[in-house]
């Protein structure tokens, strides 16, 4: 796997402007996605996952949501202030997106064929017939039977799983370098979920498409992702590769998330849950945002905002004072090692 980042997000800050003033939904987050990599972005509802993806696509609700700081680099090109013309070229062709609700994400009044062909013809010079052939080819590729007939059918004639396949086919039609999948399996049955995840893994492997998988389901992450970013209340609280995060999670929030996955082998009277709710965006201005729900929280957590500390393992970072010492110790160790040589 090559190591060129397709997408780099640096210090991205996105705010919503409401009657009550500015509400930061995403607060200075940094992450990257390499070519052909599947990055999971995990967090509870309202933590800023979807806002991050809409910021990348330039599709924040006009006049309400706005990127107020930071940079988004797509293949090295800054796209935060890119012209609408450039963004139209990027959307669909370079970065494609699929959504949570396959039931409502397709226009009910146009046939699947119409919507597929449209996606193809925006970005290529194919004539209608070629575009139709390409659409049928894509529908077959995502595993839809009777692709030809589906072209003439309307969304309401298809099941949720089939619609999500259509969405994926439509997103992949221009061979994008990055696919943003915003909770693509949340609204589907478990068996269909597994099929869709397998499909996405296959596409990632066969076409080397990088995928940004937004989800609140750690099962999905374990199944498909290479690396994970855990978000909490607009901030990244932990990041690392999948094995590290699952084997040795460091942030109390991540630990809580992993503990709340039901385990079929153990019979527990009650499933673990993290006490409390995600704070309203913008309500915590001081200290760690998780402090109020954290059983390890101490005085400092409520006063200062912790940085993102490295744990010593490759690429594993955590935003928690409990692990600050670890970073310092690592630095000391490296310095000491340096002195010895």
């Amino acid at each position: 796997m090559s190591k060129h980042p397709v997408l780099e997000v640096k210090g991205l800050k996105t705010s919503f402007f409401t009657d009550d003033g500015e509400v930061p939904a995403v607060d200075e987050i940094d992450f990257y996605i390499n070519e052909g990599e599947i990055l999971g972005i995990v967090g509870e509802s309202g933590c800023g996952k979807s806002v991050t993806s809409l910021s990348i696509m330039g599709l924040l609700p006009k006049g309400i949501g706005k990127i107020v700081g930071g940079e988004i680099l797509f293949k090295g090109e800054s796209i935060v202030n890119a012209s609408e013309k450039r963004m139209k070229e990027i959307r669909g062709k370079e970065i494609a997106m699929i959504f949570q609700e396959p039931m409502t994400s397709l226009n009910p009044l146009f046939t699947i064929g119409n919507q597929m062909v449209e996606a193809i013809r925006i970005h290529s010079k194919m004539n209608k017939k070629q575009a139709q052939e390409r659409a049928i080819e894509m529908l077959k590729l995502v595993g839809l039977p009777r692709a030809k007939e589906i072209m003439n059918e309307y969304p309401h004639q298809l099941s949720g799983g089939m619609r999500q396949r259509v969405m994926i086919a439509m997103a992949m039609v221009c061979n994008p370098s990055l696919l943003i999948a915003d909770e693509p399996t949340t609204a589907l049955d478990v068996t269909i979920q597994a099929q869709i995840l397998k499909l996405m893994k296959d596409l990632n492997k066969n076409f080397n498409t990088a995928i940004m998988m937004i989800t609140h389901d750690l099962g999905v992450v374990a199944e498909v992702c290479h690396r994970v970013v855990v978000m909490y209340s607009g901030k990244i609280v932990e990041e690392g590769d999948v094995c590290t995060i699952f084997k040795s999670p460091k942030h109390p929030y991540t630990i809580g998330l992993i503990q709340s996955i039901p385990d079929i082998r153990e019979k527990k009277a009650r499933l673990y849950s993290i006490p409390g709710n995600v704070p309203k965006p913008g309500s915590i201005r001081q200290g760690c945002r998780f402090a109020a729900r954290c059983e390890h929280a101490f005085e400092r957590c409520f006063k200062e905002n912790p940085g993102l500390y490295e744990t010593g393992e490759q690429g594993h970072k955590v935003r928690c004072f409990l692990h600050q010492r670890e970073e310092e110790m690592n630095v000391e160790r490296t310095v000491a090692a340096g002195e010895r040589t």
Partner: protein
Amino acid sequence: MFAYSIRRIFMVIPVLLGMSIIVFFMIRAIPGNPAQVILGQKATKEAVEALTHKLGLDQPWYVQYFKYLGGLLTGDLGESIRTGASITEEIWPYLAATLELSLAAMLIAIVIGVNAGIISAWFQNSWFDYVAMVLALIGVSMPIFWLGLMEQWIFAINLDLLPTSGREEVRNPVTPITHLYLIDTLLQGNTEQFVQVLQHLVLPSVALATIPMAIIARITRSSMLEVMKSDYIRTARAKGLSMFWVVYKHSLKNATIPVLTVIGLQMGLLLGGAILTETIFSWPGIGRYIYEAIGYRDYPVIQSGILVVATIFILINLLVDLLYAAIDPRIKYN
């Protein structure tokens, strides 16, 4: 689609029957003998009896109703008491005049109203949105007779741009074929008359268009705003479609259904409610025809006039229902 259409068309039959019953009993609901009412207090007993017999009022009501229904089915609307002429023949020129006027008004209302609504929704909370919606509010609350008089005063009397009233130039009358003058003059290839007819049409149709235009603009705006929030619009944007296509292809078609409903209802109201406009602009339409018949207590004419207007109203709404199915593929299956 076909099965739905057939079903929907058949559903009109009971509605039409019900309407004919209501219209039939409306005239019978007048206290006393209608013949007496028509002829007045000073009429002789013989005259009243003669008219009662002529109107068939001396027969049992079910006989009267089936005779009346039979007449309707063969296209016979009865005779006018005032002129003695067949109403079926008499009514068409008036109806044509109203159709021409209200279709012109509806065209103006739809073209301006729908586009104003779309642009207002697209640029929500912009100055265009504010101005358009304030104008729409004024439009809805504007008394038509006042607007008509103002139009005449400004454009006909002061600026002398357009004729004050009537349907055609008095010194250059149109030879009717279909009685829809725009079509007649075109058929005859008479450009000069076509322009004259068009000029006569401008002021009344603008006056008549105001209220529907305002309502259509407001409905289009709110319906578009609703649609533009939906997931499939986000999908369309994520595909890289331009805002123009997103608005005019993906949003407009979905926003059309409530707008169509309003257009259907407003069209019906225009047909029946054009009376004020027709009076102000001396437009020889069906509103005026019925209004005059009321003055002469010409009951068969009133009855037929109401029947014709109501039938057109029902047919327009049938058309709207069929259009729903043509636009929304989900409707056929429900």
